[in-house]
């Protein structure tokens, strides 16, 4: 598991993603809340954080989270997402050979939080990292799932003079939070 994680981390960082690993969900949550505060998330305009549903949140006291970091909302709408600085969602799988995150993104909320805000925080179980795209497509089958998203690093362009520039239409930062003890990850 460690070598797979390390391989994933190397590839993800090579495309400018930031990778953090925590043994428990509680530690991961603490990191995320700290990160949101540091990033200036608040209930001021353009400063919110939208958090899409996922098993990571099961059992969490959402109201407490909102108190800890005012500006967090769990009601993901187009308007809220467009108005937010940070989007948080849970990813289903990852690919170590390319540093890619993969998600059943049929629920529009999951796409909104990972496309519109400038920062995307992606939560992932350590045991969800697979070797290649083929293995992932055996779990997330296009025959059954209407929208599958693969995310490899933040949004980028090289369309002007081939100079790599991060954050065109999608997030400019991708923070990947990997959690070892992830009890109830959705498939």
């Amino acid at each position, binding site marked *: 598991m460690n070598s797979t994680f390390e391989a994933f981390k190397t590839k993800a960082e090579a495309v400018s993603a930031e990778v953090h690993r925590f043994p428990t969900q509680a530690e991961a949550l603490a990191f995320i809340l700290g990160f949101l505060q540091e990033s200036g998330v608040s209930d001021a305009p353009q400063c919110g954080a939208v958090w899409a549903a996922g098993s990571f949140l099961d059992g969490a006291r959402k109201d407490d989270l909102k108190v800890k970091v005012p500006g967090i909302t769990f009601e993901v709408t187009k308007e809220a997402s467009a108005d937010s600085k940070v989007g948080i969602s849970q990813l289903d799988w990852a690919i170590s*050979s390319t540093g890619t995150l993969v998600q059943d993104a*049929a629920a529009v909320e999951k796409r909104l939080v990972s*496309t519109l805000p400038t920062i995307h925080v992606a939560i992932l179980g350590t045991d969800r990292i697979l070797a290649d795209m083929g293995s992932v*497509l055996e779990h997330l089958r*296009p025959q059954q799932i209407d*929208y599958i998203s693969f995310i490899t690093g933040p949004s980028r362009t090289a369309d*002007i003079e*081939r100079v790599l520039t991060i954050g*065109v239409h999608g997030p400019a930062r991708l923070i990947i939070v990997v959690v070892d003890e992830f009890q109830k990850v959705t498939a």
Partner: protein
Amino acid sequence: MTTQFKESIETALHNSNLTGALGRFSEAYRISRAKAYEGIDFEATRDQIVEIKSDASSRFEELAVQFKQSAEACGAKVFRTSDPEQVKKYILDLAKEKGVKRVVKSKSMASEEIHLNKALEAAGMEVDETDLGEWIIQLAHQTPSHMVMPAIHMTKEEVATVFSEEVEEGQMPDIPKLVKFARAKLRPKFLAADMGITGANIAVAESGSLVIVTNEGNARLVSTLPGIHVAIVGIEKLVAMVKDIQPILTALPRSATGQLLTSYVSIISGAVPNTDGTPKELHIILMDNHRSDMAKDPMFKPALQCIRCATCLNVCPVFRLVGGHVFGKTYTGGIGTILTAWFDELKKADDIQGLCIQCGSCVPLCPGKIDIPGLILELRRRLVVEKGQSLAMKAIFGVVNNRRLFHSMLRMASVTQKPFTTGRFIRHLPLFLSDMTEFRSLPAVAPSPLRDTIKKIDQPKAKAKEKVVFYAGCLIDFCYPEMGESLVKILNKAGIEVVFPDDQTCCGAPARYNGAYEVAGQNAKDNIKALLATEASYVVSACPTCTVALKHDFIDTFKSLGDTGTMADAEKLSAKTIDFSTLIKKLVDEGRLTLKEGEALGKITYHDSCHLKRTLKASDEPRELLKMAGHEIAEMYECDTCCGMAGSYSIKLPEISAPILERKLKHIKETGASKVVMDCPGCVMQIRGGLDKDGTPIRAEHTVESLANRFK
């Protein structure tokens, strides 16, 4: 060639932004591509792609039916049509029915192919491209110059000007700021649009899935925010199975941008909920527009294996000089020439097919394993069949087809050229021919051709048990007989008698490369007869273009002409044919030739000729021989990039040939070698002529000359 076309080339060549940007890019590209493929078996990957795509193009109809079924089962509407007008009508009708006012698009070449934006705008809709490069060229009222990087021809200053003039005044040429500006300006458009239009990189029949890749994330927004999503998909994007996605996505990002994977890949397999909870209107248009005609043409069917990675643009020595716009409005570069001929019309490819210098650089790197130069030749042939050869060309080939007349004219040339020659070069030619000597001196026709001088060589007939037939080719026969004499000398050392059949004639390459296949076919027949008349172990040539003609082109020409009469003999000749360096290396390995030892001959550099390296696959042999002889080889940058000669190319498009040569000379000089060696008399003519013109004291010679006196 039309004047308009010639002018577009001139303009491109004088655009130093363009040539500078493309030149730098093509250099960086090779490195990043190679790095991205580390640990990946490229050959195995492209074999898989070929299998997937050729299977698909054998049964487009079946896959299209299956795709429609699968996608419609998941809530999409699939519209199939072969007619671009119907595509536009479908979208316009839909837009009208749904009251669409604002459209956002992510990159779709198929939509450009049918000029969709114009039609939508004419119907009063506001249409915005959202891929940054596409947006820039949309604002600048231009067309894409590159399949992957549409605005690669523009500088940041030009982009800032376009933004200032078209969107908001005062934009500075600062790339991060320009990108931010685009984000800020396009964001409200995404949010307000009622229809999103995308293309697709892959369409999977089994699951009805569209696979869309982008780096910017715009396709995710286009397919998520507006309530209607229309995808325009050329049927060549169809593959049978979900498992076919991986090999294509292994190659596409690596070949296109040197990435392991594009930032975003979306696999859309059904209508998902909209942001307001209503179900997405998902319309998929499967567009044929001559693709199935292409699939029915056995020669062009492989072109449907293209995954649009643009490698064939990035590594093309011509593309990097002239950029995309001279190729036309939608598809550019080598593959673009082929696609334009089919999706638009053959006539449209008339001028642009001439741009391909036939160097073959794109072939080993194409993930679809498409023989791009081969198909461009075939286009050329068909164009000649359709509209006939020009009178001048007819006259030339009339002569080439008559060996006696052709050869007596060449002999005469050695007399008539006298007033223009200095030493062994022609430096000036009168009037209209002067273009040919503008950037390099031409070799003078030798006073006596090889076919005469070879008879005076006293070959060790008594001892020799083995015979080898020598095919000289026009350049060695008439301009460089000393190369032929050296070859005889070396083979004699191995106890081999060299036979020169007098009836050998032009190899037909000039005719073939100009689409005159009948002439090439006649040349082939004459040569087959002449060369097979003597029992010999090999037919050797020191000209790679001729060797390729004998080994491959004769057979291909007969195939194209549907002429099977001489096929068996053509195959026999092909099996016997060998290039000079490969034969000599073989004789050395067999112990039949031994190089003198202990020589220190100094530093040289080696130029790989296109046909030798890429068709005959000989690049180590000459190097090893030269090293064994006592040379040290200082490799030049881009040692296997074309020198710009390419037969009549340098006559038809001297403005392109010249800068390609200039680049080559620069790389030769940078090595500090006193000599550049190569295996092709055509390259010697080009490079020696260029060095002479430029006054550089570097010798250019054929490997056969370098080795002439090196054997025991």
